[in-house]
């Protein structure tokens, strides 16, 4: 019963703050006092204050003066962390997986470098409030990245991934960075597939699959080569009748090394091929997926290629792999000095992000690395660590206040700050729960 009272009390509190909710507009100042603060930048502060002002973290430390007019939140007994960062999602791009009218995550065609996730993220998606209630405050929306809705093939050049905070009236409010990485689904040799028309497995000759692989790889090479020429041409001003090509234009920052490629590959052979390709083409590579990254860990370390891993709660790829092959991979990569983060690679399952990090920790990864694999590390890998990922002065105030370990299944989120605004944890699920909890006994 006391537990229930606490829940009721905190619900009431959150309800009372939900008016502030949604999005930055007023320059409100908050001070969270007497909390245990996990800055993830230096040591943890046992009894500290965090000041939020104008959407940013204004101060953090053990003895911080509370600015006049600040709304004070007593953090005694509570813990403060940077919000979690889900590094691969289809957030806002997919509402109901089976209904194509609600899905914008995968464009048709094989080479779409010009499409940008941010253009199609729906700020009204019910997934956004559901996800932020689990402590995730920012995500990378990644086109052509799979998920429930990826019934068909995925483009080799999938488009540009966008990072955004999980609250706001418009994407302009929410956006952290419009173009974070170029998605590449690295060509692979697939002989077997599932045929939806006949509901059966389809198999084709190896030679045929290899031919398609080579064709795709050649085309990808061709795109990169053309983009390089295009970038050189526009770099030199070009003739006045220079014909604009939006696809090559989109690839120009890639070949200049300004925009990383987010390369999806899971099998060791495909990862090796991708590394070789990016090396040759001098592309800045981030590996996504990486289920067999452990087999090429030395290569990844020596080339300093970071990995965004799929959920570790997954069965091994091979029947004779150890049963915990993917659960223990993060620990193995950490030991080998490979940089990595963990992503949900999903939309409705994004809220299992913390659970996945905790499971990696249960299988040998240090707790510190587990926590950072869903906060700081994704920020670093995606080049956004100057804005999010830790509790440091000047960063976007995406902050969570909890009653315990944010990776644990039973921990409650007490306060949620997104872009410095106290944000409601209300969502579709909570509303339905309350509605039907109040259904009169029949």
């Amino acid at each position, binding site marked *: 019963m006391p537990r229930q009272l606490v829940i009721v009390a905190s619900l009431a509190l959150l309800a009372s703050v939900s008016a502030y909710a949604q999005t930055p507009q007023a320059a409100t100042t908050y001070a969270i006092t007497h909390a245990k603060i996990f800055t993830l930048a230096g040591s943890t502060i046992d009894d500290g204050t965090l000041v939020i002002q104008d959407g940013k973290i204004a101060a953090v430390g053990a003895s911080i003066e509370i600015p006049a007019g600040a709304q004070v939140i007593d953090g005694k007994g509570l813990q403060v962390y940077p919000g979690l960062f889900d590094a691969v999602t289809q957030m806002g791009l997919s509402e109901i997986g*089976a209904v194509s009218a609600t899905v914008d995550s995968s464009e048709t065609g094989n080479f779409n470098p010009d499409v940008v996730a941010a253009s199609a993220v729906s700020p009204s998606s019910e997934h956004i409030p559901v996800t932020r209630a689990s402590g995730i405050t920012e995500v990378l929306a990644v086109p052509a990245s799979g998920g429930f809705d990826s019934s068909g093939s995925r483009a080799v050049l999938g488009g540009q991934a966008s990072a955004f905070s999980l609250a706001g009236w418009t994407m302009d409010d929410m956006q952290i960075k419009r173009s974070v990485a170029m998605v590449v689904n690295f060509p692979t040799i697939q002989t077997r597939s599932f045929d939806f028309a006949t509901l059966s497995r389809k198999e084709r000759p190896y030679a045929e699959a290899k031919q398609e692989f080579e064709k795709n790889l050649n085309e990808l090479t061709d795109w990169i080569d053309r983009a390089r020429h295009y970038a050189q041409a526009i770099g030199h001003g070009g003739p006045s009748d220079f014909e604009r090509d939006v696809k090559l234009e989109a690839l120009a920052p890639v070949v200049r090394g300004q925009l990383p490629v987010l390369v999806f590959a899971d099998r060791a052979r495909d990862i090796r091929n991708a590394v070789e390709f990016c090396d040759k083409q001098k592309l800045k590579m981030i590996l996504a997926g990486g289920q067999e990254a452990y087999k090429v860990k030395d290569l990844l370390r020596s080339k300093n290629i970071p990995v965004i891993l799929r959920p570790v709660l997954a069965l091994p790829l091979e029947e004779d792999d150890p049963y915990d092959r993917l659960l223990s991979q993060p620990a193995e990569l950490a030991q080998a000095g490979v940089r990595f983060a963990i992503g949900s690679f999903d939309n409705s399952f994004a809220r299992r992000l913390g659970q996945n990090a905790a499971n990696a920790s249960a299988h040998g990864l240090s707790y510190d690395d587990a926590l950072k694999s869903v906060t700081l590390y994704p920020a670093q890998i995606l080049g956004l660590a100057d804005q999010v990922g830790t509790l440091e002065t000047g960063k976007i105030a995406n902050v969570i206040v909890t009653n315990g370990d944010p990776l644990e299944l039973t921990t409650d989120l007490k306060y949620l700050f997104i872009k410095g605004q106290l944000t409601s944890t209300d969502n579709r*699920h909570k509303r339905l729960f309350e509605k039907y909890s109040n259904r009169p006994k029949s």
Partner: protein
Amino acid sequence: MNCLRFAVLTAFTLSVASHATLATPPDVSPVIVIQNATILTVTKGTIERGSILIKDGKISEVGPSVKAPKDAMVIDAEGKFVTPGIIDCHSHIAIDGSVNEGSISVSSIANTAEVLNSDDVDIYRDLAGGVTTANILHGSANSIGGQTVVIKLRWSQPAARLPFEGALPGIKFALGENPKRSNFSIPGQPKRYPATRMGVEETIRGAFTEARDYKHSWDAYNKKIAAGDKSALPPRRDLRLDPLVEVLEGKRYVHSHCYREDEILMLLRVAKEFGFKVRTFQHILEGYKVADELASAGVGASTFSDWWAYKVEAYDAIPYNAALMTKRGVLVSINSDDAEEATHLNQEAAKSMKFGGLTHDEALKLVTINPAMQLGIDKRVGSIEVGKDADLVIYNHDPLSAYAVVQKTLVDGRVLFDRDKDIAGRAALEKEKNDLIAKEKAAAKKSEEKKGEQPKKPEEKPKPPSSDRAAAPANGGAQ
């Protein structure tokens, strides 16, 4: 390649099996005492630093201390937690091949019990996640699907040893988007009946109307025979209707896949009309909307922890479902529908503490005694009580935590999964595999030299989605 894969797999299977049974000859159950454990009995509270004595595959004593014979095998569980084996009320592991007979909408003739594959490595993986019993269901492509069977995860035993002795068989029904094939169509083929929820109801009503007539004709025949009428001719046997007659006679459980509140109430009405009981609704993601109706019908609900939005009928799914139904008096379990999800059902149950405020005990029941009651096997399994089967899991932490890792899983008093032994055996397995590959390569090279032909390279095998997470189309509306 297939040959090589088979060889490697067989070797793997044998080696794992030999780990598990090293301590005991095949037909003798060891006497085991588990000591110093935090014992979560589920039905009789928690015993701190307690012991469990196991004899003849059964729990023989439980308490702060037990009288163990000197030669008993001792498992020191200092700092560890023991729970009853996890029971998964919705699984598709150990099925050889496809889980759906998707051709016709009443496929009651099909039976999962006849296609059990004891070599399916998912049995071992789920054991490693603490699962000891699973309800093996046909898929959800059809209004009335195939027959189902409850198995114990007796890894290393032949298929004939998997079925749970005495557990009533079941039959899978399915309502909503999957049987009406909302999310896919087969090109070149006309749309199959039923294509609406109305049609699903009539398909079930039609089948039971036939089954009732069929039963009447058998009853009449048996009556004549009993009366000594030797000239009576038996009715024509109908293998499709036989299982439905068993449903009418209460000899077979109905496990019905469903999502929406309206279709749940629909099936309850049809069941009432024909005088049978629905044993469990499966998935039942909108069960929270009709919790009182479910409670008064005395029907069980077996749901997911937090799946949602993969299709329209899952859009109102909420992670509070299990807790809300529990609080309204419904017997609830959390199931997996997926070999991977099954490996952490303890964690999935824990989510009901956060979403809806179940107690620790209530949450643990969702994957132990509650599914046991739903499957009618609670006299044998589902809690740690004297006389029950020694199906136990030893965790290194409180099992309702994301940090809990299974250390040992026992089925019928045998340690069938042992994490330490699994890890210790990996180097030998790896070597065995590499040796086999080397041997195969050498043989291939030899035959290549003979024929002057290129050997084909190993290929990758994408697994077709087998669970409802794949939003139905993948395997014809799986679960």
